[in-house]
């Protein structure tokens, strides 16, 4: 019961966060000048302008507009795009979000599947080649600017060697370069954390006990040490998902990847504010949800953390 209470409270908190984000986005995008000037040709008459303003509800007071906006949001109506006659923003975002999910998912998978084994191997063979490799990944991965790395891998692997396409989202091959560029930072962080976590836990008393019981090394590592060492990794995964989604914006621009991030950048250039609003709210909601999931799973993995303190 306690767990469900906890889940409910966390979900409510996430809802509040999304609500505040929506509010900020609404008011910030109202700071921009008159959207009707972007919608009509330059020689439009004042009367035409007035009709468009009226239709968009721009003549109402700000507070009324805000109320309408919230009411529409509650019905999951994110409004119409200013571009591409009568496209619902939510439809456009849904189409694009598949690509962003692919990209961030691939980056996360890559980071987790490579860095955890690397971190473990480094911790178990301290000072050996594999340890040096892990530390190199950790140190450089955290220092290389993702967008620059992206440009460099395009240059070497797409232009010079021609192994991969230079951009766009056509098939599995086009996913590899952007996913590596996006995932490297998380890979560095996870490798580092796994390594230091494993080193710490291998010196703990309960590992000595397990050894004294005569357990096999493999079972000591997987059953006893790893469970302990991976706790902080789960913590940063939550923040990591947020970082990946935010980082995907730049990587999507570098690789011309048709995801939500690029949609936002393009929409800003085209002054398509309903699209910008909707996309930012959707991304913020997904990050908030990811954070709740991590917090909840954390409590499932480590029962020592009480559900009382929120």
């Amino acid at each position, binding site marked *: 019961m306690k767990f469900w209470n906890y889940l409910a409270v966390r979900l409510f*908190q*996430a809802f509040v*966060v*999304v609500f*505040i*984000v929506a509010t*900020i986005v609404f008011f*910030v*995008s109202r*700071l*921009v000048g008159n959207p009707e000037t972007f919608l009509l040709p330059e020689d439009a008459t004042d009367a035409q302008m007035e009709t468009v303003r009226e239709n968009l509800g721009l003549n109402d007071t700000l507070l009324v507009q805000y109320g309408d906006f919230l009411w529409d949001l509650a019905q999951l109506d994110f409004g119409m795009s200013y571009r591409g006659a009568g496209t619902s923003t939510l439809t456009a975002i849904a189409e694009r979000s598949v690509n962003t999910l692919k990209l961030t998912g691939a980056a996360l998978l890559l980071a987790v599947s490579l860095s955890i084994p690397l971190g473990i191997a480094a911790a178990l063979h301290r000072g050996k080649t594999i340890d040096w490799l892990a530390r190199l990944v950790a*140190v*450089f991965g*955290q*220092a*290389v*600017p*993702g*967008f*620059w790395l992206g*440009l*460099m891998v395009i*240059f070497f692997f797409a*232009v010079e060697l021609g192994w991969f396409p230079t951009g766009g989202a056509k098939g599995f091959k086009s996913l590899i370069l952007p996913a590596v560029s996006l995932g490297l930072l998380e890979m560095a*962080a996870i490798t*580092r*954390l796994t390594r*230091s*976590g494993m080193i*710490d836990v291998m*010196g703990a008393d309960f590992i000595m006990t397990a050894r004294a019981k005569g357990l096999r090394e493999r079972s000591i590592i997987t059953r006893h040490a790893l469970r302990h060492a991976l*706790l*902080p990794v789960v*913590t*940063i995964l*939550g*923040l990591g998902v*947020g970082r990946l*989604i*935010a*980082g995907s*914006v*730049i990587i999507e621009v570098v690789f011309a990847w048709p995801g939500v991030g690029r949609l*936002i*950048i393009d929409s*800003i*250039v085209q002054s398509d504010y309903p699209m910008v609003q909707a*996309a*930012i709210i959707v*991304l*913020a909601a997904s*990050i*908030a949800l990811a*954070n709740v999931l*991590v*917090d909840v799973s*954390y409590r499932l993995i480590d029962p020592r*953390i009480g559900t009382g*303190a*929120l």
Partner: protein
Amino acid sequence: MTQRVPAPIEVEFSRPRGPIRWRRWLGLSLPLSIALVFLLAGVLADVLAPHDPGFLDLSARLVPPVFDGGTWDHPLGTDDVGRDILSRLMHGARISLIVVAIVVPGAAAMGTLVGMVSGWQGGFTGQILMRIVDVQLALPAILFAVLLGSIFGPSLRNVIIILLIWTWSGYARLVRAEVLSLRERDFVTAARAAGASGWWIMRKHLLPNVVNTIVIIMTLEVAIVILVEAALSFLGVGVPAGTPSWGRMITEGREVMLVAWWPIWLPGLALMTISLTGNLMGDWLRDLLDPRLRHLR
């Protein structure tokens, strides 16, 4: 996110002996000297730079660096409109320095204040403050930055404001977590029993205990702030066009990436070197001051 996880207490069993300790100092001297070069180049850019960073010399376009067949007139070559890359790198270092000098202490002060108050007060105020932190973490700051940049136009001031908003919450989270555990300690109870006010306890008892954490995060944030400034400038919402920022230089170098390597490699390498330096110094400081914080990065 509010994660109150007890930091694992790490015990170093083997004490570093003589040679290892020396190696540690040697390992620090390299980042330190790079940081010094960066600092000098930025501060003295006007005096040291061989050319005006904005001077277009169309007769000397894409001159390679001196070690790749160029001349000493342009030691690191020129870009596609004939501007001296070394001079632009130095003035770019100055831009990064200005951003770091304002953002890092500013965000630290803001975050520390919020973290301490919310940790100490707890209850309603604490909850409100932590929800603000959550909002900041859930709002993809880069999108917000792009939105603001597109509305107000690219400018150094916007970059600084955005980076302040972006980075303060990290301090707030950690300081709050530390204050939450410190407030239960005996010396705080004693101070309270002696009639000390909340502000007094925060200033005299809590602040000295969290100052190590703050210094460590500040050092580690230097690299992040520089990288994000470059990323924003790369996207065109950072510093205005024409400003010699490293991010801008990478954007410009991208145009000629296929004919000349130096306009994109050199600012990228500069960025990487300086963020590597910041990270190494942060790590060193953390191991020195507070090894418990190893999970930070």
